[in-house]
């Protein structure tokens, strides 16, 4: 019914060492279509995308471009042939600026670089994406969400026939996701073949003309637009029915565990005050760059901050993560690649890094570490082909699960989770929500910072909304609703100040 496929996989198998990850995949991308590839964490989505994009070679089988064996042997050559990939992990040089990264490998200018033209081109791209990132900003200084937007801008700047996007929305907020979708719609109209993956199934419903469901490295379901409901997708992916993924909230709140007054984290966050009770899940919402991460990092001593912090009514001074740990606080970073995990170390070393003293003094007990790892793998459903592999080779979602396991290993009283389910599949998501719920019901306190609106709404007992480094308001109980949160986020609510006073 559609035109011939541009890019196609025929009976593709892929093994890493002795382990086969993909078992005979047949798969095609058609011009002017969005094809969604969905599946659990570790199902092999990123691997398929890397093979399509020339970054990995299949162990057996064929990659066909326009019906002929793909003429490229590397990602760079594939790009020259019009096949562009937005990787799940960032593919930007951290020391270079936004402009420099976007034009890397295709700089303008004959002998000397044409800075002006490249800058203007970058600015145009960024404007097209409606972001306020400066073309001169160094990538290392940008928050992950901005880096993702740069990644998207970079891909758009390549004149693609095939655009492959590996979870581009995972680190974006709703506003940016909308912008992304507009670009995808535009490209589709231009006849570009698009491959999209996401664990947010509503996005798949919204975008996909075709859906392929992957389970354990094999295709288990193919469908056209409208043939699959979100529940259907989830069931096909996981292989069983899913109940409502958000747990019932029945928290009995205890006394105040943390009290923050007049908290400043220069240069962005100012005058934030809030309390956190035992057994409470406190959601923090806000736009990208509203200072949520900075607030959290300030609280756990990762950034210089001023203000009163009382832990169980006692004033405390937290200057480092160690101090925070000492006071029973733990923080899960949103930036798992740069700040969360040591990508070139094994699972075990990563899991125990922040709690090593527990594993024996003076000598670390390997046996105890292995036990902890076994438990973590079970509890968080971490799917690693091998226990002793480098974390960098885990699938994105499994890395996130490991990071969660690592953060919770110290048994903290107060957990601050920044984007808890970034890149995590629906099946595991409900497990993690249940887990958060369980933490709260054990009398611990949880702060959830999330750009995922349903997550905030579904998990929180109370919601704080931040805007431009300040608390824009606070919502509790019945008042927690999407409209109210969005109003505060955007600053359109007239009652915003009143809400804040209410807290």
């Amino acid at each position, binding site marked *: 019914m559609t035109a011939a496929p541009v890019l196609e996989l025929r009976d593709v198998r892929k093994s890493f060492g002795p382990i086969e990850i993909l078992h005979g995949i047949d798969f095609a991308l058609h011009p002017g279509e969005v094809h969604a590839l969905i599946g659990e964490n570790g199902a092999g989505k990123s691997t398929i995308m890397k093979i399509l994009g020339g*970054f990995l070679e299949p162990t057996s089988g064929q990659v066909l471009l326009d019906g002929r064996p793909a003429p490229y042997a*590397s*990602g*760079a*050559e594939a*790009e*020259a042939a019009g096949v562009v990939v937005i990787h799940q992990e960032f*593919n*930007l*040089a*951290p*020391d*270079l*600026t936004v402009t*420099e*990264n976007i034009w*890397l*490998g*295709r*700089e303008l200018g004959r*002998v*000397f*670089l044409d*800075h002006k033209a490249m800058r203007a081109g970058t600015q145009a791209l960024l404007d097209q994406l409606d*972001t*306020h*990132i*400066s073309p*001169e*900003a*160094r990538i290392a*200084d*940008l*928050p992950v969400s*901005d880096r993702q937007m740069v990644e998207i801008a970079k891909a758009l700047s390549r004149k693609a026939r095939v655009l492959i996007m590996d979870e581009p929305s995972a680190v974006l907020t709703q506003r940016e996701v909308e912008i992304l979708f507009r670009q995808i719609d535009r490209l589709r109209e231009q006849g570009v073949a698009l491959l999209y993956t996401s664990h947010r199934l509503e996005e798949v419903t919204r975008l996909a003309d075709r859906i392929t469901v992957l389970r354990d490295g094999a295709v288990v379901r193919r469908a056209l637009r409208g043939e699959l409901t979100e529940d259907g997708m989830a069931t096909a992916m996981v292989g069983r029915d899913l109940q409502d993924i958000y747990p019932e909230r029945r928290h009995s709140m205890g006394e105040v565990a943390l009290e923050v007054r007049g908290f400043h984290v220069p*240069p*962005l966050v100012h005058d934030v005050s809030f309390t956190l009770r035992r057994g409470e899940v406190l959601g923090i919402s806000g*736009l*990208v*760059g*509203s200072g949520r991460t900075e607030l959290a990092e300030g609280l756990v001593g990762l950034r210089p901050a001023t203000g009163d912090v009382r832990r169980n009514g006692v004033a405390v001074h937290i200057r480092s993560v160690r101090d925070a740990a000492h006071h029973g606080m733990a923080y899960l970073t949103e930036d798992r690649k740069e700040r969360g995990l040591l990508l070139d170390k094994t699972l075990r070393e990563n899991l125990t890094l922040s709690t090593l003293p527990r594993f024996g003094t003076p000598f670390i007990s390997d046996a105890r570490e292995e036990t902890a790892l076994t438990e973590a793998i079970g509890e968080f459903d971490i799917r690693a082909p091998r226990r002793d592999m480098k974390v960098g080779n885990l699938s994105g979602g499994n890395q996130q699960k490991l990071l969660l396991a690592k953060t919770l290993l110290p048994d903290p009283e107060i957990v601050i989770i920044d984007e808890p389910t970034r890149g995590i599949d629906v099946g595991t998501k409900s497990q993690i929500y249940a887990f958060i719920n369980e933490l709260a019901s054990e009398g611990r306190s949880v702060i959830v910072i999330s750009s995922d609106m349903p997550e905030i709404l579904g998990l929180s007992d109370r919601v704080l909304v931040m805007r*431009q*480094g300040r608390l824009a308001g606070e919502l509790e109980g019945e008042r927690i609703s999407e409209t109210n949160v969005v109003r505060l986020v955007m600053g359109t609510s007239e009652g915003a100040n009143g809400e804040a006073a209410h807290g």
Partner: protein
Amino acid sequence: MADQAVSRPASSFRLPSLSALGPLLALILLVALGAFLNDNFLSQGNITNVLARSAFIGMIAVGMTFVITSGGLDLSVGSMAAFIAGVMILAMNALLPSMGVGVPLILAGMGVALAVGLAAGLANGLLVTRAGIEPFIVTLGTMGIFRSLVTWLADGGTISLDFAVRQLYRPVYYSGLFGIAWPILVFALVAIAGQVAMRHTRFGRYCEAIGSNDKVARYSAVSVEGVRLATYVLLGLLVGLATIMYVPRLGSASGSTGMLWELEAIAAVIIGGTALKGGYGRVWGTVVGVLILSLIDNILNLADLVSPYLNGAIQGVIIVLAVVLQRGKKSSA
């Protein structure tokens, strides 16, 4: 919203001269100190001396900036210079009977120097990129090899340029154009070309990209191995050029020629603000670093110290202070 996050880093990129203020400040302080200690410090003679002698290390350090920026290292430059000087002198002496004393002989010698430099750089580069051995080990190895070869060529002694040739060649170090000595002119050209190459050409951009994250560079169709190789070759050529300016000064080469130049060149690069791990290079800073290092020596000669034994200590203290100053400036900027 995101604009706060962005406004910070911008300044360091728009105005590289501003962030170079750190080492510049150290340089200015040193000049002031020199002028205070000795009236002749700012005399044209002294300034010419200091600049001219900085030229060798300077050119090498400019090349080293590219190597380090792209994540490499070269420990062999000092002994490479000795080796090139040795071969160059031997070649000129050998060609003398057939060519006679004259400009063509000098040019032939220069050609030999550049060719040997290119070959030596190529050897380093190929071992690093093809054989995939750490630059530290490769160049530690070739450092020993070059040094040994020149000692062997010199039979343990000194290789001397024929006296008559030397007289002809001397002006290349000692005279100049419009009152500016040749080495200074050549160094200035190299520095400017280096700065332009780093900031305004693909080559410089790719060096930074590779040093920052070579996988990303490879994914972006940058020929990582090619660029790396090119940095070593460039450095080899610059060592050759430095040797061309050096030979007329001393007219000879021996096993001790160029001793520890590598350390000085690397130090100049780092003092100038280039990161040792690669990813960010500042040719301009390197020039300032080279000048700082030569000025320290010069100033130590201007004043009478407690004991000459302590020269090294004072030198060490000043180097560290210069960098403290720089970092301090940077973080407050």
